[in-house]
């Protein structure tokens, strides 16, 4: 069997280089076409009509006026009379017309009568949602009651973290054409080019092979863009009804924010006990969360410090009249990290202990003690902890208070199923094809790096082709599994292709194929540059043939092959200043120390961590889905009041990777999610350290900060 393992760290020429992304110019110059940019001949524009009510029954629906509207090509009722609507934003009907404006006008002409029913859209008070609550059962370990009695110090407190939306800048949607020949041309905005085809085939009840999916670029996903969704299916049906013309249906921003993806909330009543020296002995918690209508959202708490000897956890899922959750960059982990690290720091404050010491002291309760101890120390060094940290509330005179706080993370990130095909042409051209996608993490670039490294070439010599179901299947870009998956499959396919090429040229070089190697643009006898052919000359020996080989990452085998593994830890430390007169929190610095395996491209890897940290800042300070109890609608379904951080709001971000021989040996490990986890906890803890009291409710908006300062319950 060929040896697929990565070349040793010291001898790599392309892997590990800080290279600019290969599609960078295309994107930065505006030439990159996203599927929402497509304009196809004869294309129709579709607009959705959605429910203004959170819970209602459709009494009647009349589309006749819409059908007659000028330019309208097809109208479909999605929720016929009798349908029970379960959230505001539920799809009711959809119209396709020759222009977007005509479709919007026509949609306004659809007449619907609703029987309005009672709704529940707010879950911060568990007592109020009893009928919607589904207890998950108790988890018990040790003897928490006894341990609580024996504890030197205990803490009882409550915390809450709201529902966030994904808010992908490219909205969900697609251009789709269902031709008279039964073939469907599907151009979605998706995180899963390969699997979305099968999913749509099932929903349309047609063979998978009748669907062709193509996507060059995708404008964000963060866990929300795996499925074809109702709007994909409806757009296909509209196309069919309109004689196969392509239909473009992308959600408008309010709809995007209401129904195209959100992260569950998380609430916690907790009681902790510890010894005087800070050793955590007991954890007792009642948590609840809502993932929309289906309930769901169960943060794994206590987080990271899972081995607290005495534990009792009760979790309740609350069903709300809101759209269902989708995976949100590290599902449930951000909530868990906040709901664990905040009480831990509160306990440390009660013990008058430095939380850094307390986290280190309790690192033996984690699955990777050495890693966290090392990382906590490193993050402390990078954040100047020893100099800047002070006991809680001891932030000096004046209205601006500075504080520091800690958050921790853990994640899997082993590579997913992936197959790649590497083709070497007689003119020396190399193509690598995968039915994968580049979410903006640099997938294209790192695939080229792996193939170039394997063939002794440079990145520009490799053509990477992604985003098409004509290429071999590759997994969904979720769970930070893509880079592990595609690098391994690319490595194997390319090694296989190279072996074939070497067999072809072996005769000419007078050595057996296994004595040849590809280095620096040449095929040569191992260690002997004088017996060599240039890459081009070697490929010419193929005559009219091409070499085309595949390779697959098989998750169960990858670790044995040394290609990729999972399992990392990381630490975030935040440094903030809070104006106690206005309640405004300013980020000074966020430090991210991250465990990482083999790093294919430190530049794009770093970008992911910057992005993860910035998402944490948004989540800690401004993001929040605000539901109106009275109307059942989302009050801030726009980007003015659903706030994201801007370039000025983020302070300084410091990233530290543990790139070394030892970590490198673990192979590639996914990175997108872990550094997005600990930031909210770190920022919340830093705010508490600054102002001397906990802001129990995330986000730490001016209102919530002022409420906490004045002892009000928000």
């Amino acid at each position: 069997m060929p040896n697929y393992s990565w070349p040793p760290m010291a001898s790599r020429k392309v892997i590990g280089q800080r290279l600019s992304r290969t599609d960078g110019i295309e994107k930065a110059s505006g030439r990159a076409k996203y599927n929402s940019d497509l304009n196809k001949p004869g294309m129709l524009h579709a607009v959705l009509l959605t429910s203004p009510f959170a819970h209602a029954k459709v009494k009647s629906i009349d589309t006749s006026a819409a059908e007659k509207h000028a330019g309208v090509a097809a109208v479909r009722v999605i929720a016929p009379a009798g349908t029970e609507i379960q959230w505001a934003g539920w799809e009711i009907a959809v119209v396709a017309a020759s222009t977007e404006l005509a479709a919007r006008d026509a949609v306004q002409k659809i007449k619907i009568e609703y029987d309005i029913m009672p709704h529940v859209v707010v879950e911060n008070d568990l007592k109020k949602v009893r009928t919607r609550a589904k207890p998950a059962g108790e988890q018990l370990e040790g003897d928490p009651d006894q341990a609580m009695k024996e504890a030197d110090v205990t803490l009882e407190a409550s915390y809450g973290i709201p529902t966030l939306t994904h808010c992908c800048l490219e909205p969900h949607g697609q251009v789709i054409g269902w031709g008279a020949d039964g073939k469907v041309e599907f151009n979605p905005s998706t995180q899963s080019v390969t699997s979305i085809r099968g999913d749509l085939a099932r929903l349309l009840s047609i063979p998978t092979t009748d669907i062709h999916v193509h996507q060059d670029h995708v404008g964000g996903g963060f866990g929300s863009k795996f499925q074809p969704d109702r709007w994909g299916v409806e757009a296909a049906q509209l196309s069919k009804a309109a004689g196969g013309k392509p239909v473009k249906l992308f959600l408008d921003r309010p709809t995007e924010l209401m129904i195209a993806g959100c992260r569950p909330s998380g609430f916690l009543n907790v009681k902790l006990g510890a010894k005087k020296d800070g050793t955590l002995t007991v954890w007792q918690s009642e948590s609840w969360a809502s993932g929309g209508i289906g309930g769901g959202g169960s943060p794994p708490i206590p987080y990271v410090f899972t081995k607290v000897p005495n534990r009792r956890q009760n979790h309740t899922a609350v069903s709300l009249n809101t759209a269902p959750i989708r995976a949100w960059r590290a599902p449930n982990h951000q909530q868990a990290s906040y709901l664990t690290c905040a009480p831990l720091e509160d306990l440390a404050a009660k013990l008058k202990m430095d939380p850094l010491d307390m986290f280190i002291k309790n690192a033996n309760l984690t699955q990777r003690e050495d890693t966290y101890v090392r990382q906590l120390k490193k993050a402390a060094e990078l954040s100047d902890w020893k100099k800047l940290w002070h006991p809680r509330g001891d932030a000096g005179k004046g209205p601006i208070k500075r504080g520091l706080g800690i958050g921790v993370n853990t994640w899997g990130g082993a590579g997913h199923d992936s197959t790649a095909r590497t083709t070497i042409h007689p003119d020396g051209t190399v193509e690598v094809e995968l039915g994968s996608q580049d979410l903006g993490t640099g997938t294209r670039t790192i695939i080229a790096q792996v193939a170039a490294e394997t063939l002794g070439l440079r990145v520009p010599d490799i053509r990477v082709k992604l985003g098409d179901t004509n290429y071999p299947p590759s997994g969904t870009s979720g769970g930070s599994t893509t880079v592990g998956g595609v690098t391994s499959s690319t490595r194997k396919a390319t090694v296989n292709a190279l072996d074939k090429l070497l067999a072809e040229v072996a005769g000419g070089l007078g050595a057996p194929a296994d004595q040849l190697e590809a280095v620096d643009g040449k095929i040569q006898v191992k260690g002997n540059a004088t017996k060599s052919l240039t890459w081009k000359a070697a490929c010419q020996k193929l005559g009219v043939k091409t070499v085309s080989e595949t390779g697959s990452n098989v998750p169960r085998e990858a670790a044995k092959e040394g290609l990729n593994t999972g399992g990392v830890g990381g630490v975030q430390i935040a440094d903030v200043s809070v104006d106690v007169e206005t309640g405004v929190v300013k980020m000074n610095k966020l430090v991210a120390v991250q465990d990482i395996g083999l790093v294919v491209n430190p530049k794009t890897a770093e970008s992911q961590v910057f992005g993860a940290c910035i998402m944490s800042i948004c989540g800690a300070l401004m993001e929040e889905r605000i539901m109106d109890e009275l109307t059942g609608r989302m009050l801030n379904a726009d980007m003015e009041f659903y706030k994201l951080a801007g370039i000025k709001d983020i302070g300084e971000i410091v990233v530290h990777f543990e790139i070394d021989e030892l970590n490198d040996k673990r192979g590639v490990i996914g990175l997108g999610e872990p550094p997005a986890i600990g930031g909210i906890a770190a920022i919340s803890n830093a705010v508490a350290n600054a102002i001397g009291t906990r802001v129990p409710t995330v986000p730490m908006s001016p209102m919530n900060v002022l409420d906490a300062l004045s002892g009000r319950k928000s």
Partner: protein
Amino acid sequence: MSEILDPENREKRKGRGFSRRGFMQGIGVTGAVAPALLPEQAQAQTPPGVMGPGAVAITLNINGKPMKATVEPRETLLDTLRNQLDITGAKRVCDRGTCGACSVLVNGKVSYACSILAIDAQGKQITTIEGFAMSGGKPHAVVQAFVNNDAQQCGYCTPGFVVASKAFLDHTPNPTYEQVKDGLGGNLCRCGTYVGVRKAVLEAAKMMKGGSNA
């Protein structure tokens, strides 16, 4: 409720000439479409120089070239660019002047194309990213700096950032780090590329002074 959608106001408006700005406000505030006046009403009240309410033929000067389009008066410049002229560098993200993804230059000034009516853009010099990003196969200094500093991930916000950065540097050729943070405050990125953007704008400023600006 917006002025446009409020039936009472709609009645009142019958008496006065309808304004394009009014339409736009209606669209902006509600995110939905304002109901069109009946053609006979509109004709009766149309003062001279007002276009519409039906579609009208216009010519826009885009990237130095005259381009024809047939637009309804309520259509935004952004939608005309994207849907009619297939100029898609400017993206529709918030569609109401918050995110900067649709940034274009109007007479050299950075503007949100989602918040300008196409008919109001007549007679103005409109520059989209396509108009300056590449020349003679070479990327503009801002584009190159964005790539060098990896100031992009999914890239959906990036053209807007590049346009805003170019406009910023045209006005502030020697920016400080603090000025960059203020100057690009009108653009949002969900992937979180701001660290790269800060560095890119500073590097582009240097490149442009060094004469390597394409």
